[in-house]
């Protein structure tokens, strides 16, 4: 499973989403879009919007911290 989390350090939702994935033993790539402009542009292209977090699970895009959708995809 390939999981990417597009996040910023100041976003509470992002920390919660990452913690949740860790609790579920899901390994993910953490992309800080406040520092990584390529990742930021990638995120906007994939999700069509500028809100974080965005979670990419095998190409399925979740905007926000949505436990149910995460559960259904991991």
């Amino acid at each position, binding site marked *: 499973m390939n999981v990417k989390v597009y996040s*910023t350090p*100041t*976003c*509470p*939702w*992002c920390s*919660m*989403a990452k913690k949740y994935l860790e609790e579920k033993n899901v390994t993910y790539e953490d992309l800080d*879009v*406040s520092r990584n402009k390529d990742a*930021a542009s990638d995120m906007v292209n994939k*999700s*069509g*919007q*500028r*809100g*974080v977090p965005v979670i990419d699970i095998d190409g399925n895009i979740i*905007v*926000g*911290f*949505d*436990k149910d959708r995460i559960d259904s995809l991991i």
Partner: protein
Amino acid sequence: MYDVVIIGKGPAGLSAALYTVRANLNTLIIGKNDSALLKTEKIENYFGFAEPVRGEDLLKAGEQQAVRLGARIVETEVISVVKNDFFEIMTNDEVFLGKALILATGQPQKKINIQGIDEFEGKGVSYCSTCDGFFYNNLKVGVLGFKDYAVHEAMELTAFTKDITIYTNGSKLDISNKYKDESAGFKVNEKPIERLSGTEFLQNIHFKDSTSESIDGIFVAYGSASSIDFARKLGILTDNNSILVDKSQQTNLDGLFAAGDCTGGFKQVSTAVGQGALAGRKAIEYIRSL
């Protein structure tokens, strides 16, 4: 540090407090005198009153009951809620810490009727400056609001850009003394707003006097911060302007519960009191599990 902080001092919040204080939990209630119940002259369908009771009297008695049992009530406005190890609740003048938090702020305000505000959500319109502010590095942003909450959001955005305007949408700025000096640092535009426009992302804000300005981002902080605003920032799931809770009033965030009108459903004193009791009991269980 409080065991339980309750935001809102209507029937749901006060009812929750009755349970938490009686379980010896250090309980703080933060709220303003703005319960919808204050305007109700006659309540005839609440159990236990042979004669109709005024909403104001019922609330007053509820407050006295909670205080008698040991709760502390602070009358002030909550500006923001942050969850780190504990919940940090920032008010106009103080920051409180709580191990558990119960949101009981009543019926959310009606959505702002500005054309395009929903269409551009996530595409220039944001409800979370700390989450999305960085996307607007050195760009032109606005904060939609007219109270302390708007100034607080504008201050958070100064980490990303200096070009910040507070758009009051026809209201006069209504700022407490604490935020007066800070608000002087921002441009203020009091014109009523007609619509937002753009192609893929937000580009312009149009006013009812037929003028318009270019804009890259709008952060919504309208009126007083409500449960829905806190929910958006904390990552609590909502549906149609109501906070989603399970049967025991638990939200999707550990230690955070919600009760009463902010959770939607049947908006009655009796249901608010019942939900408050459930939230209080669940908060007790949560604190004891720590």
